[in-house]
C-alpha cells in the first residue's frame, strides 16, 4: 500500500491514541519516546542514539514488589500495547536476536510480555550512516526481520508492506489514507534500496571468526584494541543486542521492590567475586569477552551473530574504539 506524504500527519494522528512511540529529540539525543497529542513526528534521522530495545527490556524495571517481613509479591501488570513508529531494520533484527536468549529454556516473562505488546513499524534506510555495516552481519537497509510493518520512503510517498498479521491489522485500520501500490512504486523501491546498500562502505568479513576467535585468547591484539578503553560501557548500553542485567533490591521503609537494570560486561564489578577475585580483571579481558560474546559465543548458542551492524558503538565511543577495526585485526590474525 502507498501512503502519500500529504496524508502522513493524519496517519500519525490516527496512531497517537494507541500509545504511539517514535524517535524524539531529548536534550541532544534522539530516542524513542511517547508521542503526545498534536505533536509532529519527523522521520528525518539516521539511527536514534538510544536503541528501542528498552521498550521490551527497560533500562530499569520492577520485577516484583513486596513489603519487608511479608511473603506477598506483586508482579507488575504488563498489559499496555504500544506502537513503535520508525524503527530501523537493524534495531528490529536486534529484538529478534535477543529474543532467542530470553527464550533459552526459561521464558523471561518481562521481555516476552513487553515484546508481545509491541507493534514495530519499521523505516527502511535510504541513507545508511557512515559506520553502518548491517549487510556484513546478516541484515540489510530494508530488512523486515523482527518488524510488523515496513515503510519505504519513496520521496513523495511511503510504500507500506506488512510483515505480520499485526502489520496487516494496522494497514486495515488506516486504509482510508492508503492507496494501492503499483509496479512503478515497487521498481522505485528496488532501485532506492539497492542504492542504499551500495552506500554502505564498512564491512566485516565474519567467515571463520566465530570458530576462530577463542583460539586467539592470548593474542596481543586484545591488549592493543583495549588500550584506550576507559570502561565507560557506552558501547554496551547503547548496543541494541546487549542484554546483560543486574538485579538489585530497593528498600524504602517497609516498601521494597526487586528490580533489574542494564549492566555491562565492560564494568569491573560485573564479574567481581565477593572474595575479591575477578575472572575478567582488566579491560583486556573485558573487551575480549565483549567481542567473543557477540561474534563467537552467541553464534555457538543461538546460531546468529549478536551484532546488527548499527554502528552505535563506533559512533559513540569516546575514545574511538571501532568494532569493525577490531574484527579486521581478528581476521588478520586468523589468516
Amino acid at each position, binding site marked *: 500500500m502507498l501512503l502519500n506524504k500529504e496524508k502522513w500527519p493524519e496517519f500519525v494522528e490516527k496512531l497517537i491514541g494507541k500509545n504511539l512511540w517514535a524517535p524524539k529529540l531529548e536534550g541532544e539525543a534522539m530516542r524513542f519516546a511517547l508521542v503526545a497529542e498534536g505533536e509532529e513526528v519527523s522521520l528525518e534521522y539516521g539511527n536514534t542514539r538510544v536503541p528501542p530495545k528498552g521498550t521490551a527490556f527497560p533500562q530499569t524495571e520492577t*520485577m*516484583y514488589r*513486596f513489603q*519487608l517481613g511479608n*511473603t506477598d*509479591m506483586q*508482579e507488575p501488570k504488563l498489559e499496555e500495547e504500544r506502537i513503535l513508529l520508525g524503527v530501523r531494520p537493524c534495531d528490529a533484527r536486534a529484538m529478534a536476536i535477543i529474543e532467542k*536468549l*530470553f527464550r*533459552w*529454556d*526459561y*521464558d*523471561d*516473562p518481562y521481555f516476552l510480555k513487553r515484546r508481545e505488546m509491541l507493534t514495530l513499524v519499521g523505516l527502511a534506510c535510504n541513507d545508511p550512516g557512515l559506520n553502518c555495516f548491517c549487510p556484513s552481519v546478516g541484515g540489510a537497509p530494508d530488512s523486515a526481520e523482527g518488524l510488523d510493518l515496513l515503510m519505504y520512503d519513496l520521496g513523495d510517498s511511503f510504500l507500506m508492506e506488512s510483515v505480520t498479521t499485526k502489520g496487516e491489522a494496522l494497514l486495515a485500520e488506516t486504509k482510508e489514507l492508503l492507496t494501492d501500490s503499483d509496479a512503478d512504486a515497487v521498481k522505485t523501491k528496488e532501485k532506492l534500496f539497492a542504492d542504499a546498500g551500495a552506500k554502505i562502505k564498512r564491512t566485516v568479513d565474519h567467515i571463520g571468526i566465530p570458530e576462530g576467535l*577463542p583460539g586467539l*585468547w592470548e593474542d596481543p591484539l586484545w591488549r592493543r584494541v583495549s588500550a584506550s578503553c576507559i570502561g565507560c560501557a557506552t558501547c554496551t548500553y547503547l548496543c541494541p543486542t546487549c*542484554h*546483560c*542485567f*543486574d*538485579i*538489585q*533490591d530497593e*528498600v524504602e521503609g517497609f516498601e*521494597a521492590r*526487586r528490580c*533489574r537494570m542494564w*549492566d555491562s*560486561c565492560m564494568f569491573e564489578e*560485573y*564479574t*567481581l*567475586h*565477593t*572474595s575479591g*577475585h575477578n*575472572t*575478567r580483571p582488566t579491560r583486556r*579481558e573485558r573487551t575480549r*569477552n565483549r567481542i*567473543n*560474546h557477540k561474534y*563467537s*559465543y552467541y553464534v*555457538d*548458542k543461538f546460531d546468529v551473530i549478536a551484532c546488527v551492524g548499527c554502528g552505535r558503538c563506533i559512533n559513540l565511543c569516546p575514545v574511538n574504539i571501532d568494532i569493525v577495526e577490531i574484527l579486521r585485526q581478528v581476521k588478520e590474525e586468523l589468516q
Partner: protein
Amino acid sequence: MTADNPYIPYFATIEDSWFETGGDRCIKTFKVVFDDPAVRDSWNHKPGQCAMIGVLGEGESMISISCSPTEGKFLRFSVMKMGKVTQALHKLEAGDKMTVRGPYGNSFPVDDWQGKKILTIGGGIGQAPLRPIVEFVKSNREKYAGLTMIYGARSAGDLCFKGEFDQMSKRDDLSCHLTIDIEEEGWDHNVGFVPQMLLDLNPSPENTIAVTCGPPIMIRFVLENLKKLGFSDEQVYTTLENRMKCGIGKCGRCNAGCMYVCKDGPVFSYSVLKDIPEAFA
C-alpha cells in the same frame, strides 16, 4: 518459580541452623523446608545442582545444595559469610524464612557413574557441593564399586561437616581421609595439603571417577596430581562458580568462555573444561 515467572522465589522455613566454622568468614549451614507442601513434593534436585537463595530486601546468591535428595524432603545450604546477601542470611535462625528458587544447572552424572569407584577431593567450603555425592553414594552404596573421600582445610576449625566424619570412619564400605595444613594439638589425622595427600594415598585410576572442588590453587594442583596418578581427563570432574544474578542464563555474567556456568555448568568434566579458556581465570 511460578509457572509463569522463573524469577519469583519460593519461601522456605529454616528448621535448623548451625555454624560449621568460626571466624570473620564463618560458614553456617541451614536446613530448610519449603512452606508450600506442593513445592516440597515436586522439588527434585540432583547432586551438584545449585539454588538461588536469599532474603527479600537484601538480594539473592547462588549457593550449592549441600545435601543429597536421598536424605529427605529438605534442603541444606552451607553459606560463608562474605558479602551483603550472605551476611543477611547469617542473621537468620531456626523459624525464619529464606527465599529459594531452583534447582539450577546440570549435575554430577551419578547415574552414569554406577559400578565405578568414586573419589572426592575437597578443600574448605569446596566440600559443600561434594557432600551430596558422598551422601548419594552412601545411600546407594551397592551400586558403586567404592567410595573414598579426601577432605582438607587450613585448620581443624575450618573443616565443614565435622560431626559427620566420625560416623563415616566407622563404616567399612568407605574410606574418609582428613587433612589440615598445619599441625595442631588434638588432631589425629593427616597434616599436609590436599594435593599431596592425594599423591600419598595413591588411588588407582582404574574404574574410578575423581571429583574435586576447593580453592582454585588447590584444584590446580589436584588436577596435576590426578594426571600423575594416571587419571584421564574424562575421569575427572569439578564444579565451578562465578558471580551470578539470574541463575537461568539471561543476565550474562557467569560465562566462562562460551559456557554459562549457571546453565551449562556448574559441573564440568575436565575433558570439556580444559578447552574452555576462562575456566580457571
